[in-house]
């Protein structure tokens, strides 16, 4: 399965601004292209090079005793891939699961440690080309999310898009480390667990 192939078939259902093959094949190097998506009224982006595909939010298996931002695992054509609830990872309230909720599959790490992770977002928007000179460094304050998650602010016509640093947002060390803390004190986090359970059930309903 080639990357181009999977990108050109982005199965974003019922969305007029769904990414098309033409959108991707447009002039300009891939390095400057970003997949933008919405999360609670804010526009974020990941560099397109690491985005492998976009899936509709579907059957997900919850993994017990994991931090609340690990939504669970999914079957991606025979591979078991963890899915991160991005809103919770940002410390926000979990978004409601709608028809437009997507899982963006992102490849992280290099060589032997390379693996795929799914990221849950409210809706996928489009692939944008943002020149390097249009990208400002992260502001020192004022952002809703952790500063080190931000690789830069991309300037659009009248808006800004927050370009995420995937290695920080999806740092395996951090995802796994949090869980060890949790293992030491399971009672304290019991309430969080229940909440995420409710969400899981909402989505199934």
């Amino acid at each position: 399965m080639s990357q181009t192939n999977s990108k050109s078939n982005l199965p974003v259902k019922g969305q007029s601004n769904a990414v098309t093959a033409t959108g991707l094949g447009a002039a300009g190097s891939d390095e400057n292209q970003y997949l933008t998506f919405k999360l609670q009224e804010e526009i974020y982006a990941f560099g397109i090079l690491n985005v492998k595909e976009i899936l509709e939010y579907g059957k997900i298996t919850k993994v017990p005793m994991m931090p609340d931002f690990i939504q669970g695992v999914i079957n991606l054509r025979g591979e078991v891939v963890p899915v991160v609830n991005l809103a919770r990872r940002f410390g926000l309230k979990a978004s409601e699961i709608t028809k437009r909720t997507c899982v963006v599959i992102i490849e992280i790490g290099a060589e032997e440690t390379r693996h795929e992770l799914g990221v849950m977002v409210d809706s996928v928007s489009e692939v944008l080309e943002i020149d390097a000179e249009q990208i400002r460094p992260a502001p020192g304050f004022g952002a809703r999310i952790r500063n080190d998650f931000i690789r830069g602010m991309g300037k659009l016509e009248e808006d800004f898009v927050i370009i995420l640093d995937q290695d920080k947002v999806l740092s395996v060390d951090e995802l796994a480390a949090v869980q060890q803390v949790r293992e030491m004190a399971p009672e304290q986090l019991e309430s969080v667990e229940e909440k995420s359970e409710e969400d899981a059930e909402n989505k199934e309903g």
Partner: protein
Amino acid sequence: MSMEAALQTYFTEAREMLEDMEAQLLEIEHQSAEELPETLNAIFRAAHTVKGSASLFGLDGIVDFTHVVENLLDRMRDGDIGVSADLISLLLRCQDHIATLVDETETNGEVSDDSLRLSRALILELGAFLQDDQPDSAKPGLPSTTEQGAETQDLPMGKGDDAVDNDCWHISLRFGRNSFRDGMDPISFLRFLESLGKIRQVVILDDWLPDLSEYDPEDCYLGFEIRFMSSATKKEIEDVFEFIREDSDIHILAPYSRLSAYIDLIDSMSEDDDRRIGEILIECGALTEAELAKALALQSTIEEAEQSPRLGDIVTKDDDRLSPVVDAAAQKQTQMRDAINRKQKSLRVDADKLDHLINLVGELVTAGAGTFLQAQILGNPELIESMSKLNDLLEEMRDASLKLRMVAIGATFSKFQRVVRDMASDLHKEVDLVITGADTELDKSVVEKIGDPLMHLVRNAVDHGLESSADREAAGKPATGTISLNAYHDSGNIVIEVGDDGKGLDPDKLLAKAREKGLVGEDQQLSRSEIFDLILRPGFSTAEKVSNISGRGVGMDVVRRNVIEMRGRTEIDSTPGEGTTIRIILPLTLAIIDGFVVGVGKAAFVVPLDVVQECVEFSEVEQTERDGQTYINLRGNVLPLVNIRNRFGVRGERPMRRSVVVVKAEGQSVGLVVDRLMGEFQTVIKPLGPVFSGLSGISGSTIMGNGEVALILDVQGLVQQITRGEHALEKN
């Protein structure tokens, strides 16, 4: 092939050669006089190839050392130096050292100073053997001269009327066009050649250089005419060029060769003008002008007589002395061809590619199961019929593809020859290692993981299992102890046995020791096999004294842990006075398990079927609670429970009827309380990846027939948590 890839191949091959060398060295001691020469030859060939290839890459650290070893081996081969146990031990150490050199070169690109020091120390030891019967050739780094010396003395005999007055070898080299592409650098061959003697003169032929417009920098256009002073044999010189023999034109003429040999050389060269090559021969001093004139004259008479004997023929005819050499060379070439043919029957495949294939086939089986499920829902008999046929084929295909990963355990077993030998001499015991079932195949991943546990078991058997020779004789047993390694298949499992005919285990002594250490309660009764299992407990050692080999009670615990990790188990059988056999029983493959699916709330969990003992109905009324741990009474036995719902925080309605799956791990039975029993399911294990690395109670995941992911319960872990919990409570 790029240089980097060629180098990689070299490291792999060198390791294989060294393993070969070790195996042969170990064999020598048991061999009769007739077999000895062939074995020595094989060892020599291994060392020689390691050295030869190393020199191609300019790996001096390896070349310098191996060369001395090779010299010694050469002398052994010639019968100048007799085989002795000391010598074999030294050679084994040398072989180890070469392996270290190869490893270091691969990881660091060079040899460490420590290793160079060791090289020098070993060369001194080797020198002692070399010196014993020939003091003048002990200078390391130079080829020995005895055998060739004898030859040189013979040479004047061949110096007849038409022999050329040239005391040097003459080597004509025409490198193949693809030499550079094959990773062969002409200069490295010349450098290596210099290790055999002195290059008097080199004429570089660039006649084939094309016009600049046609010039391809990756092509090799070079030829060399070399005048070479050396006492090496023709075969040794030929071996220098072993790697380019196929593609290149190589002619080697001995010192004082007959004129006719030169004529043939001139003939066989593809140069357009015979005179040109003649001039070159003069230029590098191989022939005088008069000799060339004579040769050319002779050549025309030969041509007139329509004789064009081959070089080999001329050499043989003219010079009987050389014929064994020619024969040997011809024979060697045949051998090499045979070896190449044999190799082609098996295929080297990247392990990752195989894993990928097996993964895909595993998916196919899963997808097939899903489709079959759909067919059953639809209830179309024809569809069900054809689906089940398809499923049968899929399962066969899976079995066949899993077999691709199967390798014979023999190679792992034979490594222990060395271990046993070294230990026996350290401990002053006489030990024989008997290997059976070396052909038994098992999954590559199992083979990789079984090495360490086996090492511990074998070391333990030699150190503790076997008595000293004196004790054995006193007990009426043969002085030489026997360690046996055996492997065989047994109903979907593979069984590996490590046995000894030593003193055996004494159950009473073991139990007493365990009680003393507090591992077993004073009034606790254990079965015979449970007592034997104690030796696998951490911190349990029956050895009276701790030796540097074993006795710290650490190794056996490692064995148990590794085996459990591989989803296997151990069995110990022992008769006091007669010996001990430890059996490791492993599943054939690590990738697929028979699972038992249970449902809790909306989630499905898989329990490995081989730990499931039975299923009973759960009744809340019957359970008793003590210090947060619940128990039920299972036919008079206390059965601790793990409520999966609570343990994993699963929410949802509790059904009226629930079940207890009784599982047994580490000798402890535990009941898992679940909502539903969903039956057996053969599953492909999918690791959960680094994000879930710290997760306890879950060992992996699998994809069910309906495409959903189910988690596999880590029964071992759950049981351990319970036993640990109990201990903690007892301490309070």
